[in-house]
């Protein structure tokens, strides 16, 4: 059997004459691939929270002198840290691909007289911008430029 959802979901402002059973969630919703994918998408928020903590730790180490910085670099080579960052990368790619696939259709039909470009072109533009920004950031971090 299904589990109940919020008991007030889709209830009218005034109760009807007939007693009703509370609204139910779909049975086995957590086993359905689409729902699982959405749950995974939501769960990436936890990964980003942890990435935020790591970033704070990096900033703290930067302000605490050479020894603290060297110690942080040593800790970041720990396989657990590396695994976490691989997970963060996978999460970012997953969310970006999902966002890119949904973004084109959410464009308004027109802004004033101007119409947005065709959806495949928007999608291609998003991927081009993503690759471009990634290349620029990689080039800066690797010391190829600046």
């Amino acid at each position, binding site marked *: *059997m*299904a589990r109940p*959802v*919020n008991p*007030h*979901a*889709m*209830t*009218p*402002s005034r109760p*009807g004459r*007939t*007693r*009703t*059973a*509370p*609204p*139910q*969630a*779909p*049975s*086995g*919703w957590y086993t*359905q691939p*689409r*729902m699982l994918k*959405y749950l995974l998408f939501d769960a990436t928020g936890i990964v980003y929270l942890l990435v935020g903590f790591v970033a704070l730790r990096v900033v703290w180490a930067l302000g605490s002198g050479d020894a603290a910085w060297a110690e942080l670099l040593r800790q970041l080579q720990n396989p657990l840290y590396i695994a976490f960052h691989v997970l963060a990368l996978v999460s970012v790619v997953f969310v970006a691909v999902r966002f890119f696939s*949904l973004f084109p*259709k*959410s*464009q*308004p*039909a*027109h*802004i004033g007289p101007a119409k947005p470009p065709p959806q495949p072109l928007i999608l291609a533009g998003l991927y081009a911008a993503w690759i471009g920004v990634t290349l620029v950031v990689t080039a800066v971090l690797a010391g190829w430029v600046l």
Partner: protein
Amino acid sequence: MSEQKKTFVVTRFDPDKDQAPRQQTYEVPVQPDWKVLDALNYIKDEIDGSLSHRWSCRMAVCGSCGMMVDGKPSLTCKDALSDYGDKVEIAPLANFPIVRDLVVELEGFLEKLKSVKPYILRAKERALEEGTHRQSPEQLEEFKQFSYCINCMLCYSACPVVANEPEFIGPAAIALGHRYNMDSRDEGQHERNEIFRGEGTVFSCSYANECSEVCPKHVDPAAAVNQAKFNAVIDWLTGFVTTRGGK
């Protein structure tokens, strides 16, 4: 045609007798060309006349036969029974109070739908002698897709926000409000955009896209909701440079 038997596990609820919904199992001899609704009608006609379910047109137009089939929202007159296994679970639409068996309470939806003013609003009615409102095919194209909604409520059953935020007016109501906002004959965009900027409307949508995945008419309510977000913001910003003052 060859006959095959399938087991149907159907949710039952009698408000006069049952404290909570329960399940009842039926063995049904099915035909290969049957839709899910055909099996329910067979149960009602041949096995158990006390089963209650809604249906009418049998051609995916009236939107009354929406139910959960194997945990997924389905328009039962459209979905072929052959797409399901030997055991099929049929339940009332998720996220709606259950009136009886497979019949759900729709009054909550009708209230939400009414709140977005899903009809053409004009500042001043056009006089008869001025003739009809003309609309070009390009203007029609801007909202045509959103006007295909048959209010089957599958999108509400699929939406995770509807399940958790009772005040959310939901995909179909927003899609219909947006449909009229995009209609060149309508002059109520600002009025509706103010509603869309309120609590429990377009900005409650987390863009799960489930509504569009299950929509049997390919209305794409998720696109409508997210286009409406953009339009609501532009309308708010426009208010600062017009006499409305950001309203």
